């Protein structure tokens, strides 16, 4: 189907952003424009659902001679785009009152809408060139959102974000240029066939590394992650929610396009080509695993709640990247990994947004981000507490909440990979997976308990409930979390299942059949209901979920009792220390001179 709707989806937030300046001083006008500019793209995206599942939606804009800006929307891209627009709607509603605390609202809304446009552009792009252009937009526009407060910490966090972004995007650009050189094009789908046949193995690894590291800067992969815990705590909460829930997904989306599409051989490919893909997948699994484990430890030790959530974002990105890796590692049987990654992208968007908004609501009323200084707010802010509890259950993968579904699928994927490869390292990965889930539960439940249970400090006696627009924002996400949690197969049937075609998977393989039966269009995955599987499988799934929760609960109580969570990592052992130091040296070579003079 060829239609200009993808272009309009991107254009409307941009038009809206500039329309803000018409009546700068009217709050109502501005809020109306912002909500409309987020809602219209969402509706437009819904309208191309049937086109996207049925072969994809195309559009091309001519720009440079021989270089068109192409848009191609398939189910996977559409799903993430929809969830992005959904996030923006509810975060914008939330920010109506939240941002009354802050100055420069017009600037905030302006750049928020531009970020939305760039983010949607990344997801709807049909080739890597177009994708890169929007990716650069996604690098620049969030800067004023992060640096919004303008104090020293905010600028430091935003600078780290920017320079990591600039450096990695140059790697990405080099990768794209090399890709264009060797295959003659940048169209994601068209190139993928020729990549396998035309390139030497070493070249494939080089390009894959350049592009994965290039996208990984935004996704917060291990060793490129250090900007996240600095940038998220300083941004206004709705901005943190958007950054964490939507924007870093653009990085994961890029990795997903590279690993799961670009290097998938077509048709009668040789074993060597599949082996290359497997190796790329294996490396990706390891990066993802290191990321998730390392970040969850950092999260356990954090006391600033937004900093903790930032570490969880990194950790959850680790899950997603691990799933992407599994999909590539398993080759034709990788449907399970891909579905898990896609599902987790959606889920993480929902519960991470809800968590940031919940923490933001508490901050709005108490002006406190340190969770150890809060307590007993359950009575004061019941709606916020319930919403936050739902989100905590979601991120920890408690059965009946959405995280359980995606984590179950991812767990299946890693077990399949380990069985497939007979690889002991992958079995260790599987154990780390469970431990990380336990750590996630411990850390998030700790946040909930410390904030809403326990003894309430005297000064918070008269804390008011969160204002209505903020509650609407949080409830929107909570409902979505519960819905996906209670009907885990719904998303598989409507979006993820159809998205599996077109990635070179064998539709007759066991995993694919379970996830989505192409003939009947039904998902038989036994997550909460047996479906096509036996009741004992469901019990088994529930069992591993509950195992993680049990471990997590034990860890939390033990940690709280013995004060494990107050351990401070020495400064010299953190990346942040070196990164900041290097940056300061690079950016202010004269600063020492000036200080000496004065």
């Amino acid at each position, binding site marked *: 189907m060829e239609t200009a709707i993808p272009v309009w989806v991107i254009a409307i937030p941009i038009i809206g952003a500039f329309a803000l300046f018409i009546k700068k001083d009217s709050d109502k006008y501005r809020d109306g424009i912002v909500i409309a500019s987020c809602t219209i793209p969402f509706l437009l995206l819904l309208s191309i659902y049937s086109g996207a599942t049925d072969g994809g939606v195309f559009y091309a804009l001519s*720009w*440079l*001679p021989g*270089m068109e800006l192409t848009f191609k929307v398939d189910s996977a891209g559409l799903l993430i785009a929809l969830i992005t627009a959904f996030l923006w709607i509810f975060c914008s509603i939330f920010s109506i009152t939240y941002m009354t605390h802050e100055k420069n609202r017009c600037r905030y809304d302006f750049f928020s809408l531009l970020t939305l446009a760039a983010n949607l552009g990344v997801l709807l792009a049909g080739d890597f060139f177009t994708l*890169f*252009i929007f990716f*650069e*937009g996604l*690098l*620049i526009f969030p*800067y*004023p959102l992060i*640096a919004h407060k*303008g104090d020293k910490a*905010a*600028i430091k966090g*935003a*600078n780290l974000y*920017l*320079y990591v972004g*600039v*450096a990695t995007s*140059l*790697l990405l*650009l*080099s990768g794209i*240029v*090399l890709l*264009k*050189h060797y295959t003659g094009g940048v169209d994601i789908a068209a190139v993928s066939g020729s990549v396998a046949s035309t390139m030497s193995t070493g070249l494939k690894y080089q390009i894959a590394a350049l592009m994965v590291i290039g996208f990984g800067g935004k996704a917060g992969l291990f060793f490129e992650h250090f900007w996240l815990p600095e940038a998220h705590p300083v941004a206004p909460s709705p901005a943190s929610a958007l950054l964490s829930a939507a924007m870093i997904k653009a990085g994961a989306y890029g990795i997903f396009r590279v690993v799961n599409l670009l290097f998938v051989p077509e048709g009668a490919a040789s074993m060597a080509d599949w082996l290359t893909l497997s190796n790329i997948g294996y490396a990706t699994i390891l990066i993802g695993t290191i990321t998730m484990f390392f970040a969850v430890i950092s999260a356990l030790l954090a006391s600033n709640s937004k900093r903790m959530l930032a570490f969880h974002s990194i950790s959850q990105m680790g899950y997603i990247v691990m799933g992407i890796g599994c999909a590539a590692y398993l080759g034709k049987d990788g449907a399970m990994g891909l579905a898990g990654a896609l599902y987790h992208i959606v889920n993480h968007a929902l519960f991470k947004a809800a968590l940031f908004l919940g923490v933001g609501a508490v901050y709005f009323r108490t002006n406190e981000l340190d969770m150890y200084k809060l307590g007993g707010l359950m009575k004061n802010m019941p709606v916020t507490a319930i919403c936050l509890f739902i989100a905590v259950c979601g991120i920890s993968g408690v059965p009946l909440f959405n995280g359980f579904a995606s984590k179950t699928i991812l767990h299946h994927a890693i077990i399949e990979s380990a069985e497939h490869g007979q690889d002991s390292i992958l079995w260790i990965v599987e154990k780390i997976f469970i431990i990380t889930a336990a750590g996630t539960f411990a850390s998030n439940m700790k946040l909930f308990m410390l904030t809403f249970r326990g003894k309430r400090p005297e000064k918070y006696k008269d804390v008011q409930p969160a204002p209505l627009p903020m509650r609407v924002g949080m409830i929107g996400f909570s409902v979505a979390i519960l819905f996906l949690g209670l009907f885990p197969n719904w998303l598989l049937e409507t979006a993820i299942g159809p998205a599996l075609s077109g990635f070179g998977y064998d539709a007759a393989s066991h995993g694919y059949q379970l996830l989505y039966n192409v003939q009947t269009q039904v998902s038989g995955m036994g997550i909460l209901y047996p479906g096509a599987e036996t009741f004992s499988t469901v019990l088994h799934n529930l069992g591993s979920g509950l195992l993680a929760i049990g471990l997590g609960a034990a860890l939390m109580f033990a940690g709280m009792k013995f004060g494990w969570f107050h351990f401070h990592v020495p400064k010299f052992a953190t990346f942040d220390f070196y990164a900041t130091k290097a940056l300061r040296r*690079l*950016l*202010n*070579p*004269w*600063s020492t001179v*000036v200080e000496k003079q004065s």
Partner: protein
Amino acid sequence: MEIDSIKPLLAILIPTIGSGFILWFRKKPNLREGATLITAFLMFFVVLSMIPSVLEGNTLHYILYSFWPSVPIGFRVDGLGLVFGLVASFTWILTSFYSIGYMRSLNEHAQTRFYFCFAVTLVATMGAAFSNNWFTLFLFYELITFFTYPLVAHHETHDAWEKANKYLAYLLGTSKLFLIPAILGTYYFAGSVDFAPNGIFPEGVDKTLLVLIYICYLAGIGKVAFMPLHSWLPASMVAPTPVSALLHAVAVVNTGAFCVLRVIINIFGFDLVGALHLGALSLGEVTAIIASITIITASIYCMKANNLKERIAYSTVSQLSYMVLGGALLTPSGLTGGIMHIAMHAFAKITLFFCAGSIYVASKKTHVSQLNGLGRKMPWTFAAFAIATLSMVGIPPAGGFVSKWYLMVGSTEANEFWTLIVLATSALLNAFYFVPIVINGFFGKSEEDEEEVAPILVPQSVGAAASGSLRGTVVSQIKESPLFVLVPLCITAVVSMLLGIFPEFLMQFVKLMQ
């Protein structure tokens, strides 16, 4: 097809006559500036009128006078020359407005000399852009040097004289020592110094001598500011900002890059540059290596420079080598990137200089470390600075991205993958030295926020005088510059953005060169 046309001559005659009027009206500043503006507009329209026939694939020719056969003073307009001519003549209009605001705000002395030399330099720039052969090009090349000297020395302080002399010594020294021998050598071996689409050297010329001539060209064209012959450019920053803006971001320095491209394309030709070897490297690679060293080293100098104009000047040194690198890759995409970068860089860099001048006019601040928090006082200036920064780093949709993309594609086409690394590193360094200015401008806390601000006298400015709001008042705060300063810099910023969104316009000219 080659057609005879008087238009190239007109483009040079108009500013010549205009400079006469400027001298004539020396006692009447308003008429004098009127003459400058009218001349600038007329010249631009003449250049514009050449576009249709050049786009049809023609080259415009005009032979003024032949000293001896085969070495005339002649003009020829092709795609490369027209891009350069268009950029220079368009930015002259804006710079003229800007100069009025700047020079009057600061009550500069010797303004007639300033406008006169400016106009003559533009005569020479047009002449260089539309030259038919190296002899003509050389005449105009030297004319530029001589008439920018009084502009650089404008302030007539000890410092200004010293730096202007350095400027002259570098540019004249290189051209006398190396450029003249190179041109004579070319004439000796090829029998002419005309520009031809694929080079002019016949078969069978001694290779060693050709290499020597090529190296002499590279060393002789001092205006391209290769390291280590670059230090005249930072020195020239002692001039008033409009001079730095138009001449040391567009006209003079682009003449240098333009001359090198002429040598590579029209004197030697791609084939010969690729075939000749110096040691194990082809001359294209040699040029690319020199350009790359300049790109990276100048960027590092940039990070150390605290004076804003000096930093921008070093950035110019670095960016000029992008254009040369584009040519030296000897591939269609590389050349496209190089030629496009002439325009992209011109608009971004002139914006940066305009902004530096605007900051100086409004606040008398010259150093990067003083600019914290200034963006909130001067949002338009700093927004323009931000757009130009995007273009310098090469982030879409700013123009710099398009040329960077073509340069990168060109370097893969040429199988010179190391230049990818050079380009990426340079973009990163660009971000490191320009982005903090924008960030600290908008978000930083100024030292004066806490201290008591010394009152700054805002002199009577033209723009403000028109609106009658700021006349001779003393304000305790920095305010945005007068409109005469502000509008040109906004226009150049917007143009640099538009060139990125609609690169098709430039591509038409670039295609003519392939």
